[in-house]
């Protein structure tokens, strides 16, 4: 059973190896060819040709947090829906009704946050 997932793991490992190999390989090639010539101007972060004004890790809009929190709520919802969808024909209309109630509660919350303006990006 779990052995079925070994190829997936192996595949991820090979994908990682491709990424790491490409980065290290090109670094080695560039060092050998003499292409790797850093200087302070080249390494400074890109900003319209000026010297960078301040640290780039600045404050950002709180709405990104809001999107992340809403995402967690809805994604959990989807996690509940997955097993339900697979067995729906066995649990029949009772299962349908249960999920209808569950989705109904979620929709109430969704309508609330919509009316509150949580989904607005002006």
């Amino acid at each position, binding site marked *: 059973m779990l052995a079925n997932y070994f190829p997936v793991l192996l595949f991820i490992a090979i994908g990682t190896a491709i990424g790491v190999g490409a980065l290290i390989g090109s670094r080695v090639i560039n060092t050998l060819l003499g292409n790797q010539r850093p200087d302070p101007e080249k390494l400074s972060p890109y900003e319209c040709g000026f010297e960078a004004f301040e640290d780039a890790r600045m404050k950002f809009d709180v709405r990104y947090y809001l999107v992340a929190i809403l995402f967690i709520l809805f994604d959990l919802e989807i996690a509940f829906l997955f097993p339900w969808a697979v067995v729906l*024909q066995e649990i029949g209309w009772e299962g349908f009704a249960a999920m209808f109630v569950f989705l109904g509660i979620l929709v109430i919350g969704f309508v609330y946050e919509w009316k509150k303006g949580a989904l607005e990006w002006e």
Partner: protein
Amino acid sequence: MLETIAAANQTVINVLNSTLGPVAGPAAKTLLNIVLVLVPLLLTVLYYQLVERWVIGWIQVRRGPNRVTIFNIPFLRGWGQPIADALKLLTKEQIIPQGSDKALFLLAPVVAVAPAMGVWAVIPFAPDWVVSNVDAGLLVVLAMTSMGVYGIILAGWASNSKYAFLGAMRSAAQVVSYEIAMGFALIGPLLAAQSMNLSTMVAKQGGNYGFFEWFFIPLFPLFVIYFIAGLAETNRHPFDVAEGESELVAGFHVEYSGMTFAVFFLAEYANMILIAALASILFLGGWLSPFDFAVLRDIPGVQWLTYAGIHWFLAKMCIFLFLFLWVRASYPRYRYDQLMRLGWKIFIPITIVWLLVVAAMTLEPFASAPIINLWFGK
């Protein structure tokens, strides 16, 4: 043809098992399978990028790349371009900007590419042509594609550039928003197929009525939303505000150069091809023939049209891959607020409503009603 391949496959398994033993033999076969998937995938990424430039060139009434040939063969004009590009990227200096978090900066492309490759382990290309036929295939796919956003966030944070940071924030918010619509859209095929195993999901779309049996007909709204959410998930036009070259230069990978950029590029294109493959499997019957009607199966001249096989799967993927390019050449970029509005206020309500409709259709007495029993009566 299929029998020959199956026989050859069995011979390889036998040879590997007898020479390497019962543990190393299957592992070696798995490794061989992975190579058989990866090499065509990497070649597709390489040449899809060329096709992209050609198609967009033709749509804009210009030629696209036509200078770099292979061995000066006139017929192959432009065919050397991806190889030349790859060589160029390979020999370019890797710049790690000042003030960046070096470890995270180099980790980000690897984090992006590993799941983009690994997810192909569960994609079935034809009956039994799959590296790992796991029962929770669709869950594995969702889990892996969700990992992609970490690469974006890490890249934006580690770069120490304002453009990269803004691009990463936008991109992450966009990707998670559309992941909800995409997740809801994927429940549809699950309800219809009653299984998470991707091979079973394709098999459930087979029958006596060819393409009328495929899930895209009863699930049409979900099918459309899945594809559009797929465009947004992979940051493609018209949802590419994360890159938005006219405002953010290149978004989260603006500070990446040479091979570090190429690895991001590889992950992005592998993800696009994955979206095309998944759309074909879940909604368009994967490797099944569109002309697989019961009446055609006994007519000698057209029998071959009804045979299932990887050629149908690849043809369906090509349709989606072309759609990606067609959309890119045709539509202007969405504004960010429009994009979030589309994801949250339009797609999520539509998918929730249609999910309930589909769920009701899969249950008696609707499931055995005429027409509906074509998809849900199995």
